């Protein structure tokens, strides 16, 4: 009873899934997709069990101070940190520098316009003026000049009289953006009258309205800000999450993958030995294909790439075909064993 009902359920949904190819009716599809959703939900919920399992396996080792327990702490801390970063708590990134705006009027940089300067630790920020294509904060204003050494200059852009919206954001997602509206007064070249109405950081995009500050021509407005990282996952991607992904997960992942280049060489050394006809064929084909694939082989003789192509087209295709066909038959039989209810070892016996 305890295993018969699950067996029946398994057979039933198994045949139902099998029938999906033969019944085009949309009601059938609907049920099928619903069942597939449930299976996916189940698999996803199992990740919670997976998490519990990781703790069950590692925590006792830490508690009992088994060998290498320190590393298990690293593992658990890494998992918890990444998992928490994945939560969408945007504001928890901390109230960093909210950004500021200073206007200096002494230097008569020019007449008829004010000058926008930028000063911030976040010099790799983009400055968007009135929705125009962003200028990089470190830019001298010439968009083609991308090799300019860092720290050389600050942004300096002319602002004509009128109202301008200045947005500062990071070129990568996951940061708050800083936005301000600047009103450059008309024709008051010598006036030192200015007012900072509000400094303001927008934590969530498209939040409150932008408040303007007044600047007179000839003055320099300096926008200065440290852009706050968003915390969490999702879109917009939390920066803490992406930071951990970019600088821990990605390099480790890529390096593990890169280890293969080394292991291939050592496997070739110790395993590709012509012990018998089979292994001789294996290594012979491997060498021919390897020579044919690199330019050096082509440079030696154009026959190598041709041999490589021929082996790939004929013998490799044949072997591939045989394995796919055999494996397909094995897989059909294994699948049938399950959905015919012949196989029940995954369901226990009592």
């Amino acid at each position, binding site marked *: 009873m305890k295993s018969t009902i699950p067996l029946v359920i398994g057979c039933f949904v198994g045949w139902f899934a099998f029938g999906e190819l033969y019944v085009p009716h949309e009601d059938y599809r609907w049920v099928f997709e619903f069942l597939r959703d449930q299976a996916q939900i189940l698999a996803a919920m*199992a990740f919670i069990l*997976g998490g519990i399992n990781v703790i069950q396996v590692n925590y006792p080792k830490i508690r009992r101070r088994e060998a290498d327990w320190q590393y298990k702490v690293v593992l658990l801390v890494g998992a918890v940190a990444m998992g928490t970063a994945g939560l969408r708590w945007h504001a928890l990134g901390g109230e960093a520098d909210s950004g500021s705006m200073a206007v200096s009027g002494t230097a008569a940089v020019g007449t008829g316009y004010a000058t926008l300067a930028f000063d911030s630790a976040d010099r790799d920020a983009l400055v968007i003026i009135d929705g125009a294509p962003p200028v990089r904060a470190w830019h001298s204003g010439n968009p083609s000049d991308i090799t300019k050494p860092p720290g050389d200059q600050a942004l300096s852009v002319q602002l004509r009289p009128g109202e301008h919206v200045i947005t500062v954001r990071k070129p990568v997602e996951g940061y708050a953006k800083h936005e301000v509206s600047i009103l450059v007064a008309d024709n008051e070249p010598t006036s030192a009258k200015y007012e900072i109405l509000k400094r303001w950081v927008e934590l969530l995009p498209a939040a409150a309205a932008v408040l303007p500050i007044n600047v007179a021509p000839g003055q320099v407005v300096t926008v200065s800000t440290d852009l706050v990282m968003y915390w969490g996952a999702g879109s917009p991607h939390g920066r803490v999450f992406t930071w951990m992904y970019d600088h821990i997960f990605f390099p480790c992942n890529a390096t593990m993958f890169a280890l293969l280049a080394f292991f291939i060489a050592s496997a070739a050394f110790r395993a590709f030995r012509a012990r018998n006809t089979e292994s001789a064929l294996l290594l012979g084909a491997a060498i021919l294909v390897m020579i044919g694939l690199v330019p050096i082989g082509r440079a030696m003789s154009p026959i190598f790439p041709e041999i490589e192509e021929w082996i790939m087209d004929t013998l490799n295709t044949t072997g591939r075909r*045989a394995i796919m066909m055999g494996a397909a038959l094995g897989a059909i039989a294994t699948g049938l064993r399950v959905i015919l209810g012949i196989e029940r070892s995954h369901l226990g016996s009592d």
Partner: protein
Amino acid sequence: MNARLKIIVPIGVTIGVAAIAFLWRGNVEPSRWFTLEGPRAMYVAIVAAMAALLYYYLFRARRGDEIYIRRIAGVDAIEESVGRSTEMGRPVLYVTGVEDITNIQTIASLLVLGQVAEMTAEYDTELKVANFYPITMVVAEEIVKQGYTNAGRPDAHKPQNVMFISSEQFAFAAGVNGIILRDQPATNIYIGRFFAESLILAETGYLTKAIQIAGTAEITQLPFFIAACDYTLIGEEMYAVSAYMTRESRLLAMLKSTDVIKAFVIALLLAGAVFATYNHLAGSHEPWDLGGWLVGK
């Protein structure tokens, strides 16, 4: 059952089903509730023939007829290596591949795991199972428990030895590497679907002088397993292993029925090639396009 019948029945079943499918093609009007368009007729034929053969051989096996299965090198190796692990007092590591339970190779791997668990329970050797997906872990845990129960030692089963490592390919590889290096299993068994991590695992296993047995139907990874492991179950052999190991009637029946279909496939391939060559030499007229029929042209 007399000898002649033993041959006639499976052949009759296969050819009969194939003939029905052949006659059916195009004759079933596709409706909203049922369609045999394209290659579906052929698919149904294969599944129907396989199911019929399964039951036929199951019936014969239960009657006590002897069913012959040839040796598969990797299978004996599994038993030997579990014995060796016992002697050395080191655990056996079983990796179920990096695919979810959605893949039939994973399901096949889990079925083999059942036999391995039974074996380790009998030998009283520790069995560690590394899983890529939690759902696989849950099923693997149930299967291992069942294996220990079958061996009469349910108390020896340690649930925490069936582990979820990580669902990220190379993090998983790193985790399994860690187990290989630090728990020093004397036997590593990799059965299921594998990708690029295959060589990382197998080369690390080589470092610890473990006996390594691999099985996959993943063509791109087979060369790496063949190079780096002691035994490799190639493609279909992986599905056949559990049958050979237990010699249980239901599994032998499965092997037999796939073999009958395989023989039929070989015959079909030959016939198709002969017909096509004949057509080619005789000009363009095509009385029998078997290949086209298969894919539902």
